[in-house]
Structure formats: structure tokens, C-alpha cells
């Protein structure tokens, strides 16, 4: 059975690997300069620290160098909680944030390719999933393979299992390459919850790919027609993805309230976009500070895990349904 799966799907596997090589070449070609500059700008060192701050100094309103300590007039004791004057560390953070913004602006266009990557998991469903059973039925070869000495149950479980495994391995390679490529962009954007960034990296990609595959297999097993199965995969995948993204994702965890420190106290300060919260709403509070309704940045992996779980949970019954249909199918 394993041999048959390999023989029937090796071409698809080679195509997928070739696509990975092309994609990898693109990632390396565009990613190398991006990573070089990322290092040169010193962002890997300063970003992890800056990310934690809710506000940063508005560097445009700061003097070039912090006042040296001696410039504090003699006889005036500096208050212990003096925030009115920026210290060197705060200024360095502000510069880091500014560099990050400039970096992200320069690479935004490259990263917009990420939009195209949104549909990659769907291709697994269209070109691996949909033909799996549908092509057998269209060519009549199910009558050949289902009348050998192997039960349809074993045929279906072996085939679906091995193909799913292959898709997951390919997804892992893809996700690894992509994560390397996109890390500087995500880190400097501070928008990990963004619709594109959230959806193309992390573990959700595995959930999407498995779901698309299961949808394609099941649609093919039920309809027995390749084109119907492919169309169903497109409509179903896009539909469910949009539904989950727009209607469900915001409710995975309760939102939290976050009030920013007074932005106008002391030197000019601004909200730190690098913090990476998912800002659902913002209102001005009575005291003139900003009050934010957010999903905190540290919830990112919780959200990823929940979204992945949803798509895996959708994929499992689809696969089970496909096995059921293959067994019950009247030919």
C-alpha cells in the first residue's frame, strides 16, 4: 500500500519540493539583504528590550545627546522620580524604535508578497486533496484498486495518512523558511496579530494546510468529480478562513484594558507600536491619557494554538467523513 501511495503521488511530491526550492530561492534572495541590514542596524540586540515598553520617547522632539549629568544646576537636587529628562537608555530605546520603523517602511513592499502566501495551504487541498479519491472515480480505477486484496478502509486510511504526513512535512519546511524570512519584518512592525502576519507564520499554517487537504479529500470522495472537489475546496477554504478570522478570532480570549502612561508628561512620548498588542479599540480617558482595549502581545501563541486547534478539529471529521464515504460509496 505504501509503495502504491509513493508511486501515485511521487510526482506531486516532486512538484511540491520544486516549488519549495523556488520559494526558498525567493526567500534567500530577498531575505539576505533584509537580514544583513537588520543586523547592521543593531535591531536584534535592542528590539527584545524595546518591545516590552508601552511608550517610547518621541525621538524627533529630543535633543541629539542627553544632557550630561553636570548640566543639572548646582544646588538643585534631582528628584528621585524625575521623568522629565530622558536618560541615555530611554533615548537609545527611542532610537531603536525609530530605526525599526524606518526598516519596516523600506521592506513593506517585499513583505506584501506575504499576501500571496495566504493561499498556499489551499493549494494543498486543491492539488493533493481533491484528486485523491475524485480522480480514481473519474478514471474508473477505483474499481481496479478497491477489488485487490486490500480493504477500502485500509486503502483510505493509509492513503489519507501518508498524504497528510507528506503535507505536514512540506508545511514544516515551508514554515521554517518563511519564519526565518519574515522575522525581521514582523519584529520591526510590531504587528504579529496583523491579518497577514498572524495567518502566514507560526503553527496556524499547519492547521490551515491540514484543513484544506481534508476538505479536498472529502469533497472528492463525496462528489467523485475533480472539478467539483477543487471548487468546493476553494469556496470552503476561503469561506471558513474568513469566517474564523473575522468572527471568531477576536473572541478567543477576553480583551484587557490597558491605560498608557501620560504621554504628555515630561518630554514628548508616544505609544510604542512595537509592543505588539492587538488593539481592538482606543479611547481617551478623562485624565487625557489613552485607554486601550487590547489582546496583549503575550497572548500571541495562545491565539495561534486556539486557531490551529479549530482547523485541526475541522479537518478530523472531514477526513473521517471521507473514509466513511469511500467505504459506503456505491460505484
Amino acid at each position, binding site marked *: 500500500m505504501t509503495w502504491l501511495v509513493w508511486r501515485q503521488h511521487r510526482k506531486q511530491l516532486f512538484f511540491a519540493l520544486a516549488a519549495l526550492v523556488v520559494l526558498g530561492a525567493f526567500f534567500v534572495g530577498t531575505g539576505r539583504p533584509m537580514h544583513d541590514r537588520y543586523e547592521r542596524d543593531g535591531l536584534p540586540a535592542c528590539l527584545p528590550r524595546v518591545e516590552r515598553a508601552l511608550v517610547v520617547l518621541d525621538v524627533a522632539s529630543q535633543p541629539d545627546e542627553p544632557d550630561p549629568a553636570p548640566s543639572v544646576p548646582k544646588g538643585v537636587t534631582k528628584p528621585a522620580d524625575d521623568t522629565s529628562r530622558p536618560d541615555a537608555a530611554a533615548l537609545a530605546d527611542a532610537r531603536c524604535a525609530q530605526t525599526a520603523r524606518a526598516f519596516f517602511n523600506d521592506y513593506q513592499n517585499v513583505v506584501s508578497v506575504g499576501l500571496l502566501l495566504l493561499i498556499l495551504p489551499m493549494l494543498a487541498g486543491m492539488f493533493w486533496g481533491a484528486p485523491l479519491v475524485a480522480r480514481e472515480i473519474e*478514471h*474508473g*480505477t477505483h*474499481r*481496479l*484498486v478497491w477489488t485487490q*486484496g486490500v480493504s477500502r478502509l485500509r486503502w483510505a486510511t493509509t492513503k489519507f495518512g501518508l498524504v497528510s504526513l507528506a503535507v505536514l512535512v512540506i508545511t514544516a519546511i515551508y514554515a521554517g523558511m518563511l519564519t526565518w524570512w519574515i522575522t525581521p519584518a514582523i519584529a520591526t512592525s510590531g504587528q504579529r496579530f496583523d491579518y497577514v502576519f498572524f495567518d502566514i507564520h507560526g503553527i496556524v499554517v499547519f492547521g490551515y494546510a491540514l484543513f484544506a487537504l481534508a476538505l479536498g479529500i472529502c469533497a472528492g470522495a463525496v462528489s467523485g468529480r475533480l472539478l467539483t472537489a477543487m471548487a468546493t475546496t476553494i469556496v470552503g477554504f476561503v469561506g471558513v478562513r474568513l469566517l474564523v478570522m473575522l468572527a471568531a478570532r477576536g473572541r478567543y480570549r477576553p480583551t484587557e484594558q490597558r491605560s498608557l502612561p501620560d504621554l504628555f508628561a515630561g518630554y514628548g512620548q508616544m505609544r510604542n507600536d512595537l509592543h505588539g498588542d492587538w488593539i481592538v479599540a482606543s479611547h481617551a480617558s478623562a485624565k487625557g491619557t489613552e485607554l486601550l482595549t487590547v489582546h496583549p502581545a503575550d497572548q500571541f501563541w495562545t491565539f495561534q494554538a486556539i486557531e490551529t486547534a479549530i482547523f485541526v478539529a475541522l479537518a478530523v471529521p472531514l477526513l473521517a467523513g471521507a473514509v466513511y464515504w469511500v467505504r459506503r460509496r*456505491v*460505484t
Partner: protein
Amino acid sequence: MSGAMVADGLTVRYGRTTALDACSFAIPERTIVALVGPNGAGKSTLLHCATGLVRASDGTITVLGGPAGDPTLPQVGFVAQDAPLYLDFTAAELLTMGARLNRRFDLAFCRERLAGLAIPLDRRVGRLSGGQRAQVALCLALAKRPGLLLLDEPLAALDPLARREFLSALMDAVAAEPMTVIMSSHLVTDLERVCDHVMVLRAGRVSLLGRTDELVETHRMLIGPPQRRRPRIAGVERIVSASRAQRQIQLLVRTSGDVLHPEWDQHDVSLEDVVLAYLAECPVEPLLELEGAGA
């Protein structure tokens, strides 16, 4: 009942159409059966039932003493209509597939057979001729060393020469290792040379099943004058079909002994005549009344 294939009240419905309607029959072992019927009579459905590809809606079908489907599939060789094969596989790869998917699969036998037929093992099956493809499909089925071989319209897509070669290859295999063969066709003439039993399916029902030599012996064509009512003729068990020929009437009858009646001319029938009569099997009475009124 025992036999290579036994059905008891076998019924298959696809939605609202009934493909097989309460069929009961027993096909003895080590026979070669021509399964004849027009399109849509249920021939494919019956063969699919025996392989488990289609499930009975009602009734039962047993194959070689066991239930049709997974338990008996290893002993059943099946070639579906149009001999579906993976066209991008080479013949050698198809044999590998057979060997991997069957506990019992005679690879050496297959290689030898295909070599004997001069079918290249390393060429993609899609580039072989229709006759060669049919031979490869037959070979795959025979390599299981089946007790029951089911062939669905094996000759339909073949030219006359390929038909002859296919049938002689089949007969060689049966001679070497006895098995029951059931093959379907529109026409019995295709299979007359090789089969020893005939089964006629009409509209989902078995209208005839028997040994070919007995069928030819026990049926007669009677030609006589038009009748006012259903004729009663000594030695005639049943009138299978009636037709009008000029001022005479033709009856194809099943006899139970010698037919002795001065009004009727007797003629021997061929197997094809018998099968056609059972395929048509039109009601006799209207024809007789019409003839009677005209006379």
C-alpha cells in the same frame, strides 16, 4: 444452496431506480457463464455486488461460500468494464501493485504470460493498444489465482482479432487452473464459443439461467397458423416469446418432452435464438388476440 455465486432475493436500488430486483440464483462452481442482457439490465451491478463494490439493498449474495466483499475479495479476480488501469504506470509497475496489494499474487506467472503475449513490461500502459491493456488487466486478475473470475464486458472495446486472442488467453488460463468465470456481454454470440452456461438478465431480474447444451435441446421454434387463444400444445412447458411472420405465428417454446402436434412445424434453435427470446420475452396474449381478430 451452494455454488460459486449464490444470490437470495438480491435487490439493489440506486435512489429510486431498482437495478436488481429480488434475484435468486445459484451459479455452480467451475462453470463459464455468459451473463447477457441489454444496457441497464443490471449486469455490472450484479458483478459489482459480487466484489463488494456495491452493497445489496436487500437480500444476500455469497461468493465461494462467503459473503461478498472484503472477506472473499482475495479469491475473486475482477476486471471492470473498459479494463481500468493506471495509465501512467508501466505494466511492470501494475504487477508490483498487484503483488503489494494481494496476499496471494503470482508474479512469475504474470511476467511469463505478458512476455508470451509480447507485451513490453517497461512501457506505460497508456501507450499500449486496447487489446494489450485488456490482456494486462486479465493478467492482474488471474495472478490472484482466483476461484471466481468476473469480467465486465471484457470484449466490448476490442476488435475481432483482439477478442479472439483475449478469449483464447482466458481459456488457456481456465484449462490450467479450474475456476468459475462469469463474463458479461450484450450479445451471447461473443461468448458462445467459450461459455457452458448462460444467464440472462432483463430489467433487473434473472430471466434465464442454464447449461447451454440443455437450453438448446429443450427449446424449439414452432411455426403455425394464427390462434384465437393461447395454444395448448402437448410437450410445451412454456411459451417464451411469440412473433408474427406473414400469415403465420412463431413461438419459441420451452419443451418438456417431444412436441407432437400436426398444426405446428418444429425447428431447432440456436443459443442466440433462445437468449434473444428471453431478452425480449414479450407477453404472448396480445399478439394472439390481435392475430385472432385479424383472421
